[in-house]
């Protein structure tokens, strides 16, 4: 993957808001690979025609894979051990 194409997780805010009713770029994700905790907005975002992958800044583990196929969102969150979302921020 061309590193020049990568963006910040912040750029996935609109897409994540299609699925979650919260401000997700400030949610904290704990990486299942290295255990580091980062804001979603800080993660590395790789976008492609089918959807997006958010990767750990420190170890490159895919924390969130989100695709939209035939009217369904498909989320693979298996790379993440914990997701902390502030419920009062919309």
């Amino acid at each position, binding site marked *: 993957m061309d590193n020049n194409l990568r963006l910040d997780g912040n750029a996935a805010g*609109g897409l994540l808001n299609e699925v979650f009713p919260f401000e997700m*770029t400030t949610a904290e994700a704990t990486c299942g690979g290295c255990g580091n905790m980062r804001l979603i907005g800080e993660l590395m975002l790789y976008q492609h025609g089918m959807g997006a992958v958010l990767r750990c800044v420190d170890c490159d583990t895919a924390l969130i894979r989100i695709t939209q196929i035939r009217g369904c969102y498909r989320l693979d969150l298996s790379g993440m051990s914990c997701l902390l979302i502030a419920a009062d921020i919309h």
Partner: protein
Amino acid sequence: MPNWTTHLAGQHVDVRLTSEDGYQAQRSYSIGSPPEDTYLMLTVERLEDGEVSPYLVDELRAGDQIELRGPIGGYFVWDARDGKNDGSPLFLVAAGSGIVPLMAMIRHRANWENRVPAKLLYSSRSYEDVIYREELHQMSANDSSLRVIHTLTRQQPPNWIGYRRRIDRAMLVDTAWRQAEKPLAFTCGPTAVVEKVATELLELGYEPQRIKTERFGPTGG
């Protein structure tokens, strides 16, 4: 706009265009206006091979409707009213159209007469390519706590005494606040530039959580 809430300086919107045959293209654009303004202002750089920007720049007319969602992003934001920011000097580093969200912060700072010291290091190809050139000049002339430093990477006017190269370590050492001053850094522009700036600031001792990045991809915008 229905369901619109006031934005924060640094946020972006997603713009979606749908052609007559149903094909859709979507891009993110940073908001250039401060939250206090009545109108939302986007600054769009026209990319020759772009799918969305040529339409927005060449075709869109007053009164046309476009699909837009936002404001988006709570990470790359600066709020003059946020007590947590008290006293932290701002170091803003922009390349090309990466100036747009940083301009929202500079305008917002000016509107609130928040005099936290701020420096903008801004890389453009040429003098003509400097976005908001006059406004930045005026703002820094009227505000001793705002310093604007330009670098022109490809072409410089005669008598240019500023920087004339891409942003590098030496330039950041010259211009950035010292780490001991507890600065808050925001950098926005093409991915390669943003990553270079963030890496160098880390090496200068900036705390990782206090370097906020907004990558625009290979060409920006």
